[in-house]
């Protein structure tokens, strides 16, 4: 009850009026301000009491004043308490002329038949600004979603799609109502439907991101490959709200990739075919070499042993001519055996079947032994001169080293005339073996030198000298297998020097 008395008492009313944080204006029927509280004076930036006697329209922007007069007069015809212009945006004007948004509630009372209206004015500039900002931001996000270059969809927690952006709708040429729920599934390619639905439903079950690639019917009725990426969505308080997915038309890239893959497959197949053919030919060649080697050896054995028997049966009676022919047969058989061995060696090298076997050697003994064995090949008055330098012991594959040396020396003999010197210079210093084989033979024509180590190559000046063109190829491969190098210098008609460098383990 004290409250009632407080309100009725003048002092109580004054406190309320003066201390209220809402602007209060009391206006008479003619539209003049009868009272204004300090809050109102502050809001409208007038001095104390300055508003009293001024028309209320003073506080209204100029362009609204006429309208306001009508509203005011209408109000006084049937005054009642209500918010003013509840569905309107209201503006007020400060003394400075600044216009600002306001919310106004109206009340009324009468004193001595005079109708008075009370306006409670609140500055809502901050709220309006915040609202505008939110609206702008929302519009921005919406525009971004709608015009995104990728197609976007949103599904709720019940797996029903609730949103498709413009890009999606433009792509499919359908309305959002057609797509909503699982309407979108209608335009997924029949062959992909099950997979897509499966991925979609499984993802919902696990609430994990997923990707899918499927065909979706475009507005022109054609199916296009789509790459979809989707993620679960959550409310700010962490509650699962569904999924959001973005889809891109990757049809062209996909088709190009398919085409490329097909091409790669085709090429690989072609390559494999070629490789298999090559392999088959190589295997056939190997089998042939192996067979030929074996089958040739039997008749060669018979010939060689028969020659020996003839030799023995004729015994002391034979003259030089028979001996000469027997030797020719022997030499031819040995020659043929050599050819067979060369074919076998090159075949094994090409198949990677040749391995190194290390031996401890005395290079002086080894070299003398090789040179002795070569003596019978020498032509009339040819001489093999040997010079040794450096350490005697070394560790190398003796069989291959012998093959290399025999080949180079026999070449030197074969391609040099009677009476010439063949120089063998062997140096073994600090684990590096260097062998020089020099002859004063026919040499190798300069323009042909580049082919010298090629398989089956024979220089044009070899004439009637027999050979397979494999000897130096095998030598080079052996040298390389032993991590060494072979080089040569040659002058046509003057002679040739081969240099071999081999690292050894000693």
């Amino acid at each position, binding site marked *: 009850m004290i409250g009632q008395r407080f309100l009725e008492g003048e002092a109580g009313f004054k406190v309320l009026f003066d201390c209220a944080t809402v602007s209060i204006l009391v206006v008479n029927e003619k539209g003049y301000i009868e009272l204004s509280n300090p809050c109102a004076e502050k809001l409208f930036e007038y001095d104390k009491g300055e508003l009293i006697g001024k028309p209320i329209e003073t506080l209204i922007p100029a362009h609204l004043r006429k309208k306001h007069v009508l509203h005011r007069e209408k109000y006084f015809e049937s005054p009642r308490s209500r918010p003013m212009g509840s569905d309107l945006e209201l503006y007020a004007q400060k003394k400075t002329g600044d216009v600002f948004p306001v919310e106004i509630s109206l009340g009324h009372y009468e004193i001595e038949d005079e109708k008075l209206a009370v306006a409670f004015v609140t500055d809502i500039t901050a709220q309006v600004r915040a609202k505008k900002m939110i609206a702008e931001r929302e519009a921005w996000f919406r525009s971004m979603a709608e015009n995104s270059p990728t197609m976007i969809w949103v599904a709720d927690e019940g797996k029903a799609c609730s949103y498709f952006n413009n890009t999606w709708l433009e792509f499919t040429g359908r309305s959002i109502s057609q797509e909503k729920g699982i309407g979108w599934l209608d335009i997924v390619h029949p062959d992909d439907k099950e997979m897509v639905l499966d991925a979609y439903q499984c993802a919902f079950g696990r609430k994990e991101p997923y990707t899918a690639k499927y065909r979706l019917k475009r507005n022109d009725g054609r199916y296009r490959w789509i790459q979809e990426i989707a993620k679960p969505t959550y409310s700010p308080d962490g509650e699962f709200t569904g999924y959001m997915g973005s889809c891109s038309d990757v049809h062209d890239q996909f088709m190009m990739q398919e085409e490329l893959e097909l091409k790669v497959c085709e090429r690989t197949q072609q390559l494999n075919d070629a490789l298999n053919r090559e392999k088959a030919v190589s295997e056939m060649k190997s089998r042939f070499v*192996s067979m030929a*080697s*074996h*089958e040739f*050896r*039997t008749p*060669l*054995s*018979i*010939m*060689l*042993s*028969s020659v*020996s*028997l003839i030799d*023995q049966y004729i015994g002391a009676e034979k003259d030089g001519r028979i001996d000469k022919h027997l030797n020719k047969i022997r030499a031819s*058989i040995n020659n043929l*055996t050599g050819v*067979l*061995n060369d074919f*076998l060696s090159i075949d094994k090298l090409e198949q990677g079947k040749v391995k190194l076997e290390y031996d401890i050697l005395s290079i002086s003994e080894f070299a003398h032994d090789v040179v002795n064995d070569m003596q019978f090949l020498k032509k009339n008055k040819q001489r093999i001169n040997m010079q040794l330098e450096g350490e005697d012991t070394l560790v190398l594959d003796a069989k291959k080293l012998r093959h290399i040396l025999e080949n180079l020396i026999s070449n030197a003999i074969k391609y040099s005339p009677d009476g010439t010197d063949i120089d063998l210079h062997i140096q073994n210093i600090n684990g590096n073996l260097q062998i020089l084989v020099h002859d004063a033979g026919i040499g190798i024509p300069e323009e042909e030198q580049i082919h010298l180590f090629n398989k089956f190559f024979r220089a044009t000046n070899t004439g009637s000298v027999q050979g397979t063109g494999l000897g130096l190829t095998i030598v080079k491969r052996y040298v390389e297998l032993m991590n060494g190098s072979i080089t040569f210098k040659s002058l046509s008609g003057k002679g040739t020097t081969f240099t071999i460098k081999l690292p050894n383990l000693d």
Partner: protein
Amino acid sequence: MKTVLVIEDNKEIRENTIELLELAGYRVIDVEDGKAGIEAAGRELPDIILCDIMMPQADGYEVLETLKSNLSTSGIPFIYLTASAEKKEIQKAMDMGANAYICKPFDVNELMDTVERLLQ
């Protein structure tokens, strides 16, 4: 007189080898396949055996394996005489306990030297 058993399927090679060995003063027994070779070795107990590798009715490896497993024949010197120049075959032959390996076409002197050496 020392006895040499020659096991060789090729008639000509067999005949020539026999002739060469006989000229060198050996007594020679010959057979044309591995199976007969095993029997002859057990029966005759030769002083030395010359054996081909690729043959019908038990190849050279089988012959050597059988002879090595039999006490009466395991000590007989054994020489392979073969047309194969494959290193792995040579290795296999030596691993199995052959005393020597001679590649065809063989040098008569090499053959005689080897036989003589192994008989000493």
